[in-house]
């Protein structure tokens, strides 16, 4: 039994049953299939995270986000006073995570690509675009650049899904995707 020493002393020479070998072979092959699927998706799939990232000073990053917001502001969101920014397609778009806000609100055009920059001014936050389900970790001191192409129009929420203190559940932002 499993709670006793093996019956055959030289257990490592004991022959293995066909069924076990069969299952091990299938399981191993499945591991290879899963490995290949990830690689294949990099070649043929459309949803892959970029490896582009930079170290950045949080203050410098905040300054860049503000500069972009000043340049491309089109209006304010509701009565919140948060600017809505409509950057030109293909451009670099900066989004700031901070306690407890995603700033500013972005207005993007459907079917156009944008280089979205993500970083935090303070703690870690979790970029979670809903209901699309794109989730990316946001760190202070690191700036990640993802090229994103909104494929449907409408208003999408950005919520925070990395615990960031007592206001975590109030941290929400928006992306409007408009047809052009």
């Amino acid at each position, binding site marked *: 039994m499993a709670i006793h020493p093996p019956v*055959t002393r030289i257990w490592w020479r004991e022959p293995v049953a066909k069924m076990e070998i069969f299952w091990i072979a299938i399981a191993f092959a499945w591991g290879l299939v899963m490995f290949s699927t990830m690689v294949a998706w990099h070649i043929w799939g459309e949803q892959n995270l970029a490896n582009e990232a930079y170290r950045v000073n949080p203050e410098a990053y905040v300054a860049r986000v503000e500069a972009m917001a000043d340049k491309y502001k089109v209006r304010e969101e509701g009565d919140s006073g948060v600017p809505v920014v409509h950057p030109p397609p293909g451009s670099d778009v900066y989004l700031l995570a901070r306690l407890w806000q995603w700033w500013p609100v972005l207005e993007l055009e459907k079917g156009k690509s944008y280089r979205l920059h993500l970083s935090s001014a303070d703690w870690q936050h979790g970029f979670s675009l809903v209901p699309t389900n794109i989730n990316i970790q946001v760190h202070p001191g690191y700036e990640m650049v993802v090229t994103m*192409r909104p494929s449907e129009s409408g208003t999408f929420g950005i919520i925070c899904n990395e615990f960031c203190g007592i206001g975590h559940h109030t941290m929400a932002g928006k992306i409007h995707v408009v047809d052009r």
Partner: protein
Amino acid sequence: MEAIAQSPARAVKAPVFRICSITGLRVEANAEMLIRANAVVAVIFLAIGGLFGLSVALTRWPAVHLLPAEWFYIALTAHGADVLLFWILFFEVAVLYFASSTLLNSRLAAPRIAWVGFALMVVGALMANVAVLQGESTVMFTSYPPMQAKPHFYLGLVLFAVGALIACMIFFATLVIAKEEKTYEGSIPLVTFGALTAAIIAVFTIASGAIILIPTFLWSVGLISTIDPLTYKLVWWAMGHSSQQINVSVHVAVWYAIVAMVLGAKPLSEKVSRMAFLMYILFLQLASAHHMLVEPGISSEWKIFNTSYALYLAVLGSLIHGMTVPGAIEAAQRKKGFSRGIFEWLRKAPWGNPAFAGMFLSLVMFGFIGGISGVVLGTEQLNILMHNTIYVPGHFHGTVVAGTTLAFMAVTYLLVPLYFKREIILPGLARWQPYLFGFGVAGISLFMMGAGTLGVPRRHWDITFSDAQMVYSFSPAAFLMMTLNGIAAVIASLGGIAYVVIVVGSILFGKRIPDGKERAPFEAPPVGNAVGQYGNAGTFHLPGTLVLVGVFFLSFVLYYYVNWKYLAQVWPLK
């Protein structure tokens, strides 16, 4: 006169053994006391941590929304630490001592030092709890910087880890003593081998923990100015993930122990099962990679290599146990004559014995719920869909609660008679306990996973965003999932309370088991090798197990590709 001349260290008393009347195992006095102490403290932390879990789940049930925000986050931090770290590790220390001292028929090495380890673990666990409940260390058990807890939070964790490391050393030393004193013949039993795997991984794990928690502690007292959040995560998860591999090794060892003690089942092949354990050691070092799949500045090559080399070969280990454990049960049952059709062996299994029922539910749920979802989550691109949503706690309640915790509960029904010499009280309730807890936890896991696929975030007090500047409205389906999760949590908690009541009640009031007579109210475990040798090729035929693993495999493949299909609908990213 001679005794006076001896130094105190040499005046060790000869080990004292007694014989368990039910199993025939020889129990050494020091090991017995340490196992009792660790198991009791474990159950206390499960009770405390479980109640925190219930309060968290009731808060996330939208219509109930039990706790205010501040207390929700405190309770969640305490829940994670108390159950994931303290309950599991205290129990694992008990299992290590069982697998070394009792199974090898040996005295336990250095019992005084073992008590020091135990004391450190208790002090550390209490210190961390105090820190959390004081309210200024609400950082979740992962404590990602730059968010900072009070120094005694980190210090508590470090002390706890040192205590656990001492316990591992005692385990290794006991193996050495047993070998030297020839207390057993041939190789160590498979269960001890599994425990050895766990202890080896634990050393690696605790080293990673020290590498990251000690600087973090120094940072919290102001001696270090910053901790890089990305490096922290990488090293923290070298501890955090590897410790899950400890849990898996121990609970698989516990599965083997239960099927041996309850059914007299032998492993199909010692070689295959041991190889599978070895894979856990060989292929886990960088498994922290799958916690880093959507972090900035990490290359896809690194992610793919480390998740698949490290993960799929470790997964392969689990897939092997997933066949050999039911296979061992089937073989044992067929030997006993339950050999009609494909599934008579399963139908006629001792479902009324909570040790067996808990073990089997743990096996099935760990595989189907925890295992499959874990591989999906750990796939580089699929992680984008689910990272940090409540799908993640859904997944690990499938592994560490339905898997590990349920297996530990199941084996308790065998350990209480063995070490406390008491019968299990309330056998009627005990019969139902694994089902209540198991199905409750399956519910928690599945409903959290369901809510996660709808985007519901983890660790979140209010998905209605009632105090937020900007609002996002989740679909009614998401609210329904969180409600069902609350209901399942109540069921699981009833199962958890039943467990605590039965265990504590049995220890205090259970009928004493006199040496050499009486037994627990479950089926008599066979003494000695009730089952002959069938470890060899060609001597067994296990159609039932083949069907089970076939169903499992198909579900796995289907679910895996369904998620790729979801991913294909998401906005293009590069």
